[in-house]
């Protein structure tokens, strides 16, 4: 049975070889094996089918079957993802995993169905950190008045003003030269992107403040999902869960490798950050975005997860 009866097309914005792409590929291999080659999953890496928001829409409309996207890209579609993407919500990656793999993870997943999406797995996107070309950042005061490129997302923008810095929207492709020439002072991202974008060359002060831990989601279109038999659905779920374990391992390796690479290249990684002050500065952000009793309860339960 060499021929695929069903081909599920999955989109990713990251390039081939990136942990998220490799994760879905591993899932594809397991699904193909367990269905005797009936169901194939084909990954389209490098934004070939569009940016995250576009490919989420395509998955909702049933144009493509699967999407891998950051929680941040679901913020304006599935409101609960905004609460779970709040800055400094998680103490560590371990804490994040415990939340996602427990009842809260199930609860979040349930909220996607009415938007035409079935979540299958939570992948790691690492922690996002500040980096800049001016000085090492240890305290909130160090950030004051600096210009940071952030994504066009209300929470990120409000987080920057709460820290006294200027959020500056900018296309990703212009960040390198803008840091180099001083249009902006820095940006924020995880270690692998800091390395692969070359930003480490122009912004050598990296602060491990872990302000955002935004999980990555693998979701399948409700239209495509309902065409699968319950048995195949189960195979998909199991394969997705297994791929998450692999993806998290690959992610940790990649993060470590990138960290070592940028340090070797001369980046200065600041680890003694006054994190309490950063967390305290987030009060207005939480006030603005955690408005309903349900959201307050969710934040409380996330914080209490041990």
């Amino acid at each position: 049975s060499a021929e695929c009866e069903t081909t599920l097309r999955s989109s990713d914005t990251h390039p081939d070889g990136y942990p998220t792409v490799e994760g879905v590929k591993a899932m594809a291999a397991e699904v193909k094996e367990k269905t005797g080659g009936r169901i194939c999953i084909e990954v389209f890496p490098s934004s070939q089918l569009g940016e995250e928001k576009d490919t989420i829409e395509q998955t909702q409309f049933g144009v493509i079957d699967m999407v891998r996207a950051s929680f941040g890209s679901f913020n304006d579609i599935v409101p609960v993802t905004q609460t779970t993407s709040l800055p400094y919500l998680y103490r560590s990656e371990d804490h994040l995993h415990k939340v996602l793999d427990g009842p809260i993870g199930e609860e979040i997943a349930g909220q996607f169905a009415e938007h035409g999406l079935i979540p299958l797995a939570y992948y790691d996107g690492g922690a996002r950190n500040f980096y800049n070309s001016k000085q090492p950042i240890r305290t909130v005061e160090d950030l004051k008045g600096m210009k940071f490129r952030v994504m066009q997302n209300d929470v990120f923008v409000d987080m920057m003003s709460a820290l006294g810095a200027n959020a500056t929207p900018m296309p990703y492709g212009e960040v390198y030269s803008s840091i180099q020439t001083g249009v902006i002072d820095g940006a924020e991202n995880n270690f692998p992107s800091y390395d692969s974008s070359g930003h480490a060359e122009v912004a050598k002060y990296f602060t491990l403040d872990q302000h955002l831990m935004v999980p990555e989601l693998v979701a399948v279109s409700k239209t495509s999902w309902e065409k699968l038999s319950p048995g195949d659905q189960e195979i998909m779920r199991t394969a997705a869960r297994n791929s998450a374990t692999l993806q998290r391992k690959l992610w940790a390796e990649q993060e470590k490798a990138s960290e070592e690479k940028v340090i070797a290249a001369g980046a200065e990684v600041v680890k003694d950050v006054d994190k309490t002050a950063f967390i305290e500065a987030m009060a207005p952000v939480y006030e603005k975005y955690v408005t309903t009793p349900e959201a307050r309860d969710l934040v409380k339960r996330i914080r209490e997860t041990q």
Partner: protein
Amino acid sequence: MLAGIAALSRLNGFLSRVSLWLAGAGLVFMTLIVFAQVFMRYVMNDSLLWVEPVAILLMSWFIFLGSAVGVHESFHMGFDVLLFFLPDSAGNWLKGLSDLAVLCFAIGMAVYGWQLMVRTWGTTLPVIRLPGGFGYMPLFTGGVLMTLFVLEHLLQRLSGSRAEAQQDAEDILMTEA
């Protein structure tokens, strides 16, 4: 029939002029806000966060309005070498065929543009906090205008009253990219 076409022509002439003025105003306004963004960031050290999404919306409006005007004025760049070697009657026939294809696409733009608007109305555009459907409004509007404009050309062709615009040096200036 001819009276109907003439009425459509008058309506289209008006819509096209209004669209061109609105699109021009959009371009000028876009210039001003992007300049304000540079000024605020460099001089006032304070970024205007709404500039990027607003500028993108404006650009979307002026492109779809401007492209619709392009259908009305027939300035969209094409490859008409074959038409040049064919007799006029055959050329006219092929142009009618081409208009028909454009008409189908324009109707698709209006119909699916509307669907996209409806289906994304529940989401929110970041920073400017408008319903997501606003992003697809220019597409829908452009589709409606193009449908009207190309329909006029097609009807004129069918009734034999279509006069092709002559290309002059000014037109050539525009067919560059």
